């Protein structure tokens, strides 16, 4: 057959034949299924899979191995300093007093991610999976909706109020001249690199940075807005990609046009931690300022202990 007719003409003919009408039930079934399917929250949408070069892949692999090794080391008996493998004797612990965070239980974490604490009682809490270990205090009504190795999320009592996201092990996304962002190969951009990046970003309005000290970790805070009229990087694209996760799935996080970000970037014993108060585009500047003011007292209680993302000895706060 292929010798008699051109393969392309055959495929044209053959593929034109076949069903062209979907069964009616498809829409009914989908309508039913999406009733039970929540949309992924805006913070987690994967704007697009970013280009990860060989160096970054290698770095990610090394980081993953290091994290697994540190976790395993921490699980060894007689671990005394949060890094693990310490002496056989147990020196007096410098851990803070027991917290009010409930024991693991079944709670509805955002996007079905495991491990969050859910609704929090008033008092001190600490992350279970996020590292460096986050220790903080909230009044009643707050919710820990995400607690994974590189992201921690705190929702305030009012669902409409901007939330707090804490990131670690993330990279800067370069997207200065095209629609194809790429992650900077550096596994851990410094506080100053982040500030320089944000202030120079052509798709953002940024305030002057302010020096901060939170729980003994020094850094800077800055407010940025993704401005619709300044987003020229990729015509028709309302989002400004900023943050690249380094853990699988490799993904990027951006600010949509008109949204507000209050970023506090800290150096926690050599690990850069981003604390972000996110405000939707629907919020006015005064509403966002009020939300930041409400979130800041909680952020001010943040302390960082030793954890898997700090691959070096450290002292518990």
């Amino acid at each position, binding site marked *: *057959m*292929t010798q008699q007719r051109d*393969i*392309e003409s*055959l*495929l*044209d*003919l*053959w*593929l*034109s*034949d*076949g*069903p*062209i*009408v*979907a*069964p009616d039930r*498809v*829409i009914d*079934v*989908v*309508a039913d*299924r*999406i*009733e039970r*399917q*929540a*949309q*992924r*929250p*805006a913070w987690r*949408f*994967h*704007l*697009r899979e970013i280009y990860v070069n060989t160096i970054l892949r290698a770095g990610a692999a090394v980081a993953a191995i290091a994290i697994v090794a540190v976790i395993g080391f921490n699980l060894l008996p007689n671990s005394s300093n949060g890094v693990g493998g310490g002496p056989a004797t147990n020196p007096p612990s410098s851990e803070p007093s027991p917290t009010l965070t409930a024991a693991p239980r079944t709670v509805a974490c955002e996007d079905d991610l495991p491990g969050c604490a859910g609704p929090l009682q008033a008092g001190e809490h600490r992350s279970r999976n996020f590292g460096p270990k986050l220790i903080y205090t909230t009044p009643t009504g707050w919710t820990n909706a995400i607690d994974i190795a590189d992201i921690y999320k705190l929702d305030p009592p009012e669902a409409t109020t901007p939330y707090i996201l804490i990131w670690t092990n993330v990279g800067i996304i370069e997207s200065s001249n095209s629609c194809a962002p790429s992650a900077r190969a550096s596994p851990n951009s410094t506080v100053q690199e982040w500030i320089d990046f944000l202030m120079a970003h052509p798709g953002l309005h940024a305030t002057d940075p302010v020096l901060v000290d939170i729980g003994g970790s020094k850094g800077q805070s800055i407010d940025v807005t993704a401005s619709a009229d300044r987003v020229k990087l*990729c015509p*028709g*694209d*309302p*989002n400004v990609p900023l943050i690249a996760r380094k853990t699988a799935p490799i993904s990027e996080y951006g600010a949509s046009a008109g949204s507000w970000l209050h970023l506090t970037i800290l150096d926690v014993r050599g690990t850069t931690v981003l604390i972000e108060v996110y405000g939707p585009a629907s919020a006015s500047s005064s509403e966002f300022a009020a939300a930041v003011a409400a979130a800041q007292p909680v952020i001010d209680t943040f302390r960082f202990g030793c954890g898997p993302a700090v691959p070096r000895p450290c002292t518990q706060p």
Partner: protein
Amino acid sequence: VDRDLVEAARNGDREAYVDLIRVRSDRLFAIAQRVLRDIDRAEDALQDALVIAWRDLRGLRDPDRFDAWLQRLLINVCIAQATRERRRTSNLRVLPIDGPAAPDDLLSVADRDQLDRGFRRLPPEQRAILVLHHYLGYTPSEIAETLGIPAGTARSRLHHAHRAMRAALEADARSSVREGRPA
């Protein structure tokens, strides 16, 4: 209007989303059926793709790209499903199905069977490329845009898909001759 519907759906409006997909379901189903060569699996793939699209809709950057985005998502679901199916059935031989001839008489039943067998031998990614090009009439550039790959890669993959299809048909013809089937 569609842009408004996409934006409404992105903001959680389920009715808007259903309106959006209702007018697109036939075309998407036809694509899925042609990649998967199975009506039931095409229906499953379409349903899965539409639910995933709803879940991830907030990740769509540009509402005007909804169709390309949805099509790409469907193709990926079809490829995943076909890959799973291929693993399960890799030791099975696809038998020709006796069915009514198509309205046109340009292709005989034997031709169709042979094309079907040859097509099923292809990796799912190549099937998808061929459907985009020969059913939807996409150029390599449009294929590239749909699949999110460079245009050169799309051209190369299309070339390889044609070559693989030809090889599959020739292999089928050889085995048909050995088994006494009409080639």
